């Protein structure tokens, strides 16, 4: 552990690829036992940051210390104590499920017998024990993901890096992965993950940063971020598309001035950010506005995310 009490600590971290700056100077501190998330649209610099923390990508600038060691000079020593779940599965299709774990364990210098025992335990942990002798190729996406997670744990890491751990999984598989990750966290393992699922971030992360354009634009716990960048509740007023066309949307919004902290006009909806949704709905009806449907909901991290990173599509 570093002298500053952080398991990961970064100052002025920059990553450039030629002329392109993927990470434009970020400061970070992740404490032991924490579940820390990176949120951000595609191209925000999340994966580049993760690869630098994983000591597979040297920073272009700045200081990065992991487990109290300098990332620039102690790559192999740091990697010996990390678990990594990359964005794309990199399992070995020539090997069996079990061999994928035992061979990988050997790269960490884990003795054969220990590797065998640990691999069996881990297959139990990710509910793949009955597939131990099978080839990897025919496994489902969820199974491959779980196997990748099991592989990342083979060296009993203190810190596990997960790059979009549940992207592409069906809901059952996602919930199983979440539950297993939660158990790891209970055991005191520090988790660092990237995601663009807001529910995932809310479920798993104690603290998170929102990245956009290579910079950190907000930082805090999910509830603190909601409190700071959104309101307690959101009223969604749905209209016929023609009703909100061009200036008409703005007209309706003007009618509703003062009823909410913030009014957002979308092509099919008006969003009213407010502390008390039901009271706002009553006030809306009082002013004679009649939407097709009304929905009152709690504010979510998604509202924060969209507010901070915008609604423009990023590919």
């Amino acid at each position: 552990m570093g002298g500053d009490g952080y398991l990961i600590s970064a100052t002025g971290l920059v990553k450039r690829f030629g002329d392109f700056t993927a990470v434009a100077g970020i400061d970070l501190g992740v404490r032991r036992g924490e579940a820390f998330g990176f949120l951000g649209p595609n191209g925000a610099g999340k994966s580049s940051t993760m690869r630098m923390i994983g000591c597979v990508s040297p920073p272009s600038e700045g200081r990065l210390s992991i487990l109290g060691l300098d990332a620039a000079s102690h790559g192999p020593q740091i990697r010996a104590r990390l678990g990594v779940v990359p964005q794309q599965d990199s399992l070995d299709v020539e090997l069996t499920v079990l061999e994928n774990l035992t061979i990988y364990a050997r790269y960490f210098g884990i003795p054969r017998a220990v590797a065998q025992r640990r691999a069996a335990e881990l297959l139990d942990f990710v509910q793949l024990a009955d597939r131990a002798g099978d080839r990897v190729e025919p496994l489902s996406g969820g199974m491959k993901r779980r196997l990748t997670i099991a592989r990342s744990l083979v060296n009993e890491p203190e810190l596990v890096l997960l790059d979009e751990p549940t992207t592409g999984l069906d809901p059952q598989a996602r919930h199983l992965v979440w539950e297993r990750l939660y158990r790891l966290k209970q055991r005191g393992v520090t988790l660092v993950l990237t995601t663009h699922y807001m529910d995932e971030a809310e479920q798993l992360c104690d603290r998170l940063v929102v990245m956009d354009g290579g910079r950190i634009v907000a930082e805090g716990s999910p509830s603190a971020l909601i409190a700071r960048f959104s309101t307690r509740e959101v009223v969604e007023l749905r209209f016929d598309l023609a009703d909100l066309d061009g200036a008409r949307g703005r007209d309706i919004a003007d009618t509703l001035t003062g009823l909410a902290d913030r009014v957002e006009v979308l092509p099919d909806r008006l969003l009213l950010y407010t502390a008390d949704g039901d009271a706002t709905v009553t006030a809306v009806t009082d002013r004679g506005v009649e939407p097709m449907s009304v929905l009152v909901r709690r504010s979510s991290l998604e509202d924060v995310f969209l507010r901070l990173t915008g609604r423009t599509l990023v590919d």
Partner: protein
Amino acid sequence: MATTVRAVPRGRAAHVLAYHLVGYRRTWRATVFSSFLLPVIYLAGIGLGVGGYVDRGHHLGVAYLSFLAPGVLATTALTIGVEESTYRVFSQFEWDRTYEAMLATPLRVVDLLLGQLAFVVFRALVAVVVFLAVMAAFGTVHSPWAVAVVPVGGLIALACAAPTFAFTATQSSAQGFSVLQRFAVIPVQLFSGVFFPVSQLPAPVRPLAYLSPLWHGVELCRGLTLGTLHPWPALGHLAYLAVWAGVGFALAARTFRRRLVV
């Protein structure tokens, strides 16, 4: 600082070699044709068939089959060296992404290279041993020095594999490999003194044959199985192959790093 730095494991390249061997346990059958049967077919077809004609002229001073066999042996080592270094390596970069997974562990780029090149050499050694036995059965081994073709075969494979690793690391698609095969591997196989002495080549192109690592390998193997090798030229050939292996390794380390450590 209170934390002890956990020691980085020893023998990292050996674990990489072990990994490739485990995979090979499952895929070796697919390599039997190209590594064993094809060379034997060459030997029987060209050696006996063409050999019948050639031997009537008595130009070689030795039966054509005995002339050809060590050349085919050296070619087999080259073929394995290149074959194992193209699609297989590319797939580990791009399709299966095994290199990425390996580099997330304490392994370094040099460990990946050393371990996998050791595997390529292993493949060549096995093929050369089998081929040597076949040569003996055909009565084409004329000197006890012939056993030395085994390590020489390994060196030929390494001298061809290391630069091919470097080439593969620069490729963004698999299309380059058929170009490599057509414009490098096949001409080298045809004009490196395997099927006829390079003295048959027109004088202006002969130096090209001398540049080919295969020609040096063929000279070594032929000298060893016929028992005609002289020490000084032998050292020259070995040194030339070692330079290819060494420079190839340095280039491979550079191109691998450029591709993987970004």
